[in-house]
């Protein structure tokens, strides 16, 4: 590997001033814009979670009233799903890495890329405006006819926020698809792509095919609430179940918009810290695409008790269980990659291992919930809450943090303090389990979700959960502090601090504006650690023999 020569100019110091950031078309700078924005919305959504857990520390509704509580969990869901989980990995890591990983100078449509950030921010403004005026109380699912005819809160402005966030997600997906198809460096065939690229490609397919359905659903919802053009309200001849079908046709695949990029991150981390090509590369790549496809056929598992026919329920139940197959393929292949690898316990790897454990629990409880008998029993209880937090927080957030820790030296050129990063990874893992595992028990014992008060017998588990949330909160605060700290004081990371494989590690840290001095030519398979070692040896030999 080369010396740590740092390029004199990189994307960060190429230009200065607010204008150079707000009008940038550089995918790496847009990634930073996303990073700032999603961190802000995560903090805001986290604040709601803090209030929720505080309220649930005691059985009585003593901190907030029921209607305030309804707004808290609604805004928590809206912010975390539409403004954090969906844009986080694609917007930050995807934007930064995809062009570099495929050896391109930028996305196919740099201006569209910037526009998607502005559309997202406009959506965020609508959501924030609604919050300042008192929020929404429909739940993030906006079920009709409550949302269109009864709720007295800011449904329309929040729905516009969701619509805009969705449109931004569509533009991001469009950009990824065209970029991966048309901008790959010479020699970089489809099956040489890093699995992160495969995952985001599969994600983009879902973004393109599912998100427009949410968009039209929200448009119809707004039309019904604003102009009484009734499509869903039974009083106007509509069918509220149709709303649920349309909503979940998007919102189940939306889970894959969140989790597929996380899979991609984990594949990169596991391979880099096991120093091995990922086990069954092609199968892992194909699993991403098959999850994307299967994800469109399972939305009915959200509607087992919504007057859907039992026959439809059985079909949806079976199809939902099918998703477990490619998901399990991934988990087994990551585990198999570790086997006989030279595993090192760097911070990103801690997150990756945490991910594998938590995703396994989240996934298996998903299979339980896909079983109609169990679902009817635990429907709308904390069991469901625990399940999707294991998938969305336990898996997606762990992967996002792991990815940030892995690529942070590439993004900023600086290293964060290793000791503190390991402490925080541990705190996140322990705090997360302490927060959400008791919720499985609570749900199984029958505690319903979305209530601000509960019977006394649930208090012990709820206090455990709230205590865990405190640990989790500290675990999130520490990286926030040291990431900021490292930007100025962190020691210079060098081009490839992990000695990892991939085009992004071949360029400087931080990369120059156009990523590479010349378009790279790709000659090796993905994660070909052996091939790379041989190539290095071959390269260094003549140098050594020269006088």
């Amino acid at each position, binding site marked *: 590997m*080369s010396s740590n020569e740092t390029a004199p100019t990189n994307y960060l110091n190429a230009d200065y001033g607010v204008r150079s950031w707000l009008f940038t078309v550089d995918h790496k700078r847009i990634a930073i814009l996303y990073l700032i924005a999603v961190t802000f919305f995560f903090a805001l959504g986290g604040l709601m979670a803090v209030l929720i857990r505080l309220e649930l520390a005691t059985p009585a509704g003593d901190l907030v009233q029921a209607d305030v509580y309804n707004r808290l969990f609604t805004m928590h869901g809206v912010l975390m799903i539409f403004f954090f989980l969906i844009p986080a990995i694609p917007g930050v890591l995807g934007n930064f890495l995809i062009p570099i990983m495929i*050896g391109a100078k930028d996305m*196919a449509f740099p201006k569209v890329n910037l526009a998607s950030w502005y559309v997202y921010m406009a959506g965020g403004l609508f959501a924030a405006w609604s919050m300042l005026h008192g929020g929404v109380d429909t739940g993030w699912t906006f079920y009709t006819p409550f949302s269109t005819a009864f709720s007295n809160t800011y449904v329309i402005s929040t729905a516009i926020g969701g619509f805009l966030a969705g449109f931004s997600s569509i533009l991001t997906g469009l950009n990824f698809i065209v970029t991966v198809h048309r901008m790959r460096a010479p020699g970089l065939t489809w099956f040489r792509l890093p699995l992160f690229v495969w995952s985001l490609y599969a994600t983009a397919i879902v973004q393109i095919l599912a*998100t*427009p359905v949410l968009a039209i659903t929200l448009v119809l919802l707004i039309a019904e609430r604003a102009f009484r*053009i009734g*499509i869903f309200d039974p009083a106007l001849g509509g069918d509220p179940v149709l709303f649920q079908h349309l909503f979940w046709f998007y919102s189940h695949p939306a889970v894959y918009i969140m989790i597929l990029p996380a899979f991609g991150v984990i594949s990169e981390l596991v391979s880099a810290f096991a120093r091995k090509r990922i086990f069954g590369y092609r199968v892992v790549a194909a699993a991403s695409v098959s999850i994307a496809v299967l994800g469109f056929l399972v939305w009915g598992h959200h509607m087992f008790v919504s007057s859907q026919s039992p026959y439809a329920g059985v079909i949806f139940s079976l199809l939902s269980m099918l998703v477990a197959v490619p998901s399990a393929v991934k988990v087994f292949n990551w585990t198999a990659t570790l086997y006989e690898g030279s595993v090192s316990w760097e911070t990103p790897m801690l997150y990756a291992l945490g991910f594998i454990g938590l995703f396994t629990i989240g996934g298996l409880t998903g299979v339980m919930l896909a079983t109609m008998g169990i679902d009817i029993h635990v429907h709308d209880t904390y069991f469901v809450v625990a399940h999707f937090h294991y998938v969305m927080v336990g898996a997606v957030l762990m992967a996002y943090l792991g990815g940030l820790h892995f690529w942070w030296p590439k993004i900023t050129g600086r290293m964060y303090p290793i000791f503190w990063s390991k402490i925080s990874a541990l705190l996140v893992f322990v705090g997360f389990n302490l927060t959400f595992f008791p919720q499985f028990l609570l749900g199984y014992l029958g505690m319903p979700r979305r209530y601000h008060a509960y019977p006394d017998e649930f208090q012990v588990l709820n206090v455990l959960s709230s205590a865990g949330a405190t640990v989790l909160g500290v675990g999130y605060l520490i990286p926030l502090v040291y990431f900021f700290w490292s930007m100025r004081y962190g020691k210079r990371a060098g081009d490839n601090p992990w000695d990892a494989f991939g*085009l992004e590690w071949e360029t400087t840290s931080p990369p120059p504006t156009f990523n590479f*001095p010349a378009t790279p030519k790709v000659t090796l398979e993905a994660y070909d650690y052996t091939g790379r070692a041989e190539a290095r040896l071959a390269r260094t030999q003549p140098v050594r023999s020269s006088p």
Partner: protein
Amino acid sequence: MSTAEPDARTQPVASKLRPWGLAHHFESLSQQQDASYFGMWIFLVQEIMFFGGLFTAYIVYRTANPTAFALGSDSLDLTLGAVNTAVLIGSSLTMALAVWAAQTGRRRTIVVFIILTILLGGVFLGIKTVEYGHKWHEHHVPGPSFHWDGPEARGVQMFFNLYFAMTGLHALHMVVGMAILAAVAVWAWRGAFTPGNHNLVEGLGLYWHFVDIVWIFLFPLLYLLGRHAG
């Protein structure tokens, strides 16, 4: 992969003359053109899914209220709808001719055909406004003032809900298209497009044909299907 190895860093950046209009991040005009068309096709795929939600709602409610939908359909003005279909197909022809003019480098011809396309789009929207006006006077617009003399009033109202939602969103797509067409006409007049580089005209052409095709589905669904069943 490993490739832009350290030695690649020292390679000089290829200093070939970049063709006019080639954006910084593309290697060649043909790559730029491929990316541009491909992007438009992907955009149209998401448009199909967007309208798909509405068509699903139409199928669901039409199946539930076949008689009411036939009655509602009967109350629409078939002549105006048919004329509009012809107008829109005509506008697709002029759009296609504008693309042809761009491919063959006829600057003035591009502008003429784009203006014709905008005019035909305007005629379509004008006729649509007349139709909407009729419905307003007949109290067939959904909402508190909706009134229907006859059976199945609720089902008919659902027909009009969908009629206005579908044709309204279609009209909105036309307005957006016409606004972009107007901008493209100005650029074309200033000579922004060459036979080798006219992605915007071609992409916009795809969009315009798509909006046209949506109407080709809307017209029979709303004006024709089940018309004599009521």
